[in-house]
């Protein structure tokens, strides 16, 4: 027994002799690649290759089924999209959805997490209740809420009581109210998931910090601001980033809920609805790919920007 690993503290584990370790290295490399291989091949085939294809197609006039030969068209697809009002309208719909949902849903999730982190009888049951809508798949959730948002449905029945009959829009057939309806469904279905992540974060904040703060006479709000928020910063950033990406990917609700996908009058058409419409329904793969590439660039920029911005802000 020659060299003893200095990091070893557990008495029962002893480092293997040098010679054996050297011999194990090559087989370890082999095992590592063996472990990586199955998922690695799948990742290359189903993410890397289609991603490269998307970029290649975006410079061609590729169609799904076409007698015409595929040819290189340069930036034509990109110019087409960037000068198309419908494309910008789709992006704007994504933007207004995200600008509302990301902060509001995260704030609600944080509030729920703080509530179910209090000590009281039955809190586990409430955690389950708030998470339950997450297990309702979007196609089902959308269907339930189509019924709820019917002009003669339950939501309007409730609103008529509260507003004395002054407010009962035809939610999903209104260019103004269709998007809010989609926002409500999305938040109802998604907030429980963020709550669980933030709850886990709250439970990791050391109790001693709260004890010290209350000895110092800090108010509840001061404790929340100075202990809780810094303590869960990383998870909060994670939640914000993921919610932003998911908000950009909005597709199921605007496809399923209005009478026509993205309707009425394109008021809920999102980038993804637009992409599937162009690239799939109209079978213009080249153009659809251009939309996909632009979309990816936007998501990437947003993610990087958000990370950098939030990280630096928190360094203080």
């Amino acid at each position, binding site marked *: 027994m020659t060299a003893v690993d200095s990091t070893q503290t*557990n008495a029962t584990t002893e480092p293997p002799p040098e010679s054996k370790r050297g011999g194990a290295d090559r087989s370890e490399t082999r095992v590592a690649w063996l472990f990586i291989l199955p998922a*690695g091949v799948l990742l290359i085939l189903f993410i890397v290759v289609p991603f490269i294809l998307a970029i290649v197609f975006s410079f061609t006039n590729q169609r799904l089924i076409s007698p015409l030969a595929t040819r290189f068209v340069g930036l034509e697809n990109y110019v087409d999209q960037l000068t198309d009002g419908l494309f910008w309208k789709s992006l704007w719909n994504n933007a207004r959805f995200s600008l509302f949902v990301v902060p509001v849903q995260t704030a609600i999730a944080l509030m729920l997490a703080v509530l179910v982190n209090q000590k009281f009888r039955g809190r586990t049951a409430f955690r389950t209740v708030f998470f*339950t809508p997450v297990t309702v798949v979007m196609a089902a959730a959308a269907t339930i809420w189509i019924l709820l948002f019917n002009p*003669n449905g339950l939501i309007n029945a409730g609103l008529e009581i509260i507003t004395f009959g002054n407010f009962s829009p035809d939610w999903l057939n209104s260019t103004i109210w269709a998007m809010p309806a989609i926002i409500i469904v999305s938040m109802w279905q998604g907030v429980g998931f963020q709550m669980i992540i933030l709850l886990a974060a709250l439970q990791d904040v050391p109790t001693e910090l709260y004890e010290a703060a209350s000895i110092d006479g800090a108010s509840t709000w001061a404790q929340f601001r100075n202990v809780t928020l810094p303590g869960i910063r990383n998870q909060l950033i994670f939640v914000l980033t993921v919610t932003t990406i998911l908000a950009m990917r909005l597709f199921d609700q605007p496809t399923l809920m209005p009478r026509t996908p993205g309707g009425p009058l394109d008021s809920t058409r999102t980038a993804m609805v637009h992409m599937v419409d162009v*690239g799939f329904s109209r079978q213009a793969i080249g153009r659809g790919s251009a939309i996909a590439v632009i979309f990816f660039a936007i998501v990437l920029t947003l993610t990087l920007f958000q990370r950098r911005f939030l990280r630096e802000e928190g360094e203080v």
Partner: protein
Amino acid sequence: MTAKTKPDRSNVSSSVRSSPVWRWILYAVMIVLAVLFLFPLVYMVSSSFKPDDQVLANSDSFEAFLPIPFVGLENYVDAIERAQLPRVFMNSVIISGCIVSLGLIVNSLFGYALARLRFKGKKVILAIVIALIIIPFEALAVPLLFMGAEVGWLDTYQIQILPFIANPLFIFLFYTFFLGIPKSLEEAARIDGAGPVRVFTRVVAPLAKPAYATVAILGFLFSWGQFLWPSMVTRGIDVRPLPVGIGVFQNTPPVAWGDIMAYTVLMTLPLLIVFLIFQRQFVQGVASSGVKG
């Protein structure tokens, strides 16, 4: 990721405010919130036991939440027949089952290699995996559809399964979880003469149950609810999963809301049951795995 077993860490501040008044306010708030979260589901279940034309007619009274008039399982029988539910349900089970089970194996192996095994190029591969997380599937859908059409895979199971088995996010979750397992346990097994494969299957994998539960539930949530992709690559009902199968009801008027609600109940139940069974491990898994940014 710090301690595996930790004492209850609820806010201390909550015990400071444990006066009865505060308690009642808390309960009142929680109950109002619970009603907001649950009423659509109660409505779904009660509507599934009503005659089709009563579902909307009842919406302006409290009867919306009660199965009155009660028609028993009539809607369920209708839904099962009209939507060929046994077939569609089996499709969903096959597709999600394959994605989740195979995904658990390949993603955890990949994650373990990154976390523990020594080999050249590890850092590069880790960086690539993280970069892949950002690529949204939707951006790949159109070229993938093209690839699938080229090899004649439209209307098959494999085109709905294979693209989703390997998942960079899940690889990353496993990776961070494995990093958190104390090395000493593995080294002890190694000294007993166990190779890396044995160490993984006998020591590491059993310790990683919360990570497996988390990834299983997340994977199940993602795959069971998929809508975009199956509606692009399937035409007939033969290989269609549940969320796309619901279209049957919307295409043929009059809208039979009772049947539709019965269908959504049947579509939702499996996930709900899976979650209720595994929720303990799931919450623990989220807490201890890498869902931390």
